């Protein structure tokens, strides 16, 4: 019996599919956490804001959220570029630009979270 369909390609599609969903759920949980904190504090003033980011557990949760966000953004933006940008040179250039931006944002995130100490 021959298979109906012979799978060709690099096989990263299913992994990206899974990454997109796992990171989405992680970001959803963080969103619930932040909404919960906002309700808990009943709005935001500088002291509460500063105290929230002074908490190491919150900083780590925020970092995990941001990494999930960057990975999620990479999968999504790459899909968009693959679908609409036909010239390979332009597509590659844009993909490199996106990766560069995301790595830079990761550095910026660390600076925001831990740079003040």
């Amino acid at each position, binding site marked *: 019996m021959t298979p109906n369909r012979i799978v060709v390609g690099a096989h990263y599609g299913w992994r990206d599919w899974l990454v997109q969903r796992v990171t989405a759920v992680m970001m959803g949980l963080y969103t619930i956490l932040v909404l919960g904190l906002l309700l808990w504090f009943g709005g935001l003033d500088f002291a509460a804001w500063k105290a929230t980011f002074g908490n190491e557990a919150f900083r780590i949760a925020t970092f995990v959220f941001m990494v999930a966000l960057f990975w999620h953004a990479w999968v999504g*933006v790459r899909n968009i570029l693959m679908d609409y940008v036909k010239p390979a040179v332009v597509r590659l250039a844009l993909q490199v630009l996106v990766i560069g931006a995301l790595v830079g944002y990761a550095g910026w995130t660390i600076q*925001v979270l831990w740079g003040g100490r």
Partner: protein
Amino acid sequence: MAAVDRPVLKPRPVYLNLFAIRMPFPSVVSFLHRVSGALLFVIGIPLLLYTVQRSLASPEAWVQMRAAFDTPFAKLVAVVLAWAFIHHLFAGIRHLLLDVHIGVELAGARRSAALAFVLAILVTIAIAVRLW
């Protein structure tokens, strides 16, 4: 190794011409998922990092950020990004439900697409009203 054993390969990747595709409502919502995701990437991430960084700098910087938020342009940007986030979230939850085979029939899929679209707009309006 006869060449006839090889399956005929379709040209890949496939490029989508948006102007040649008929879009029923669920695909409009799906397309807006992409648009909102792109907005969040291009404007949302850098603006989020900048805002959090500035607002944590000092009590004065916090007051400045709040004041900057009070201009009509900043409010417009905030509302657009709020819509992008909420639409992306709701359409994303819908995708996760479809993944576990909830609402995969045509009628249900149409209804959930409309629900995600309308709910996102309603929540965005509520936020806009609060901002103004």
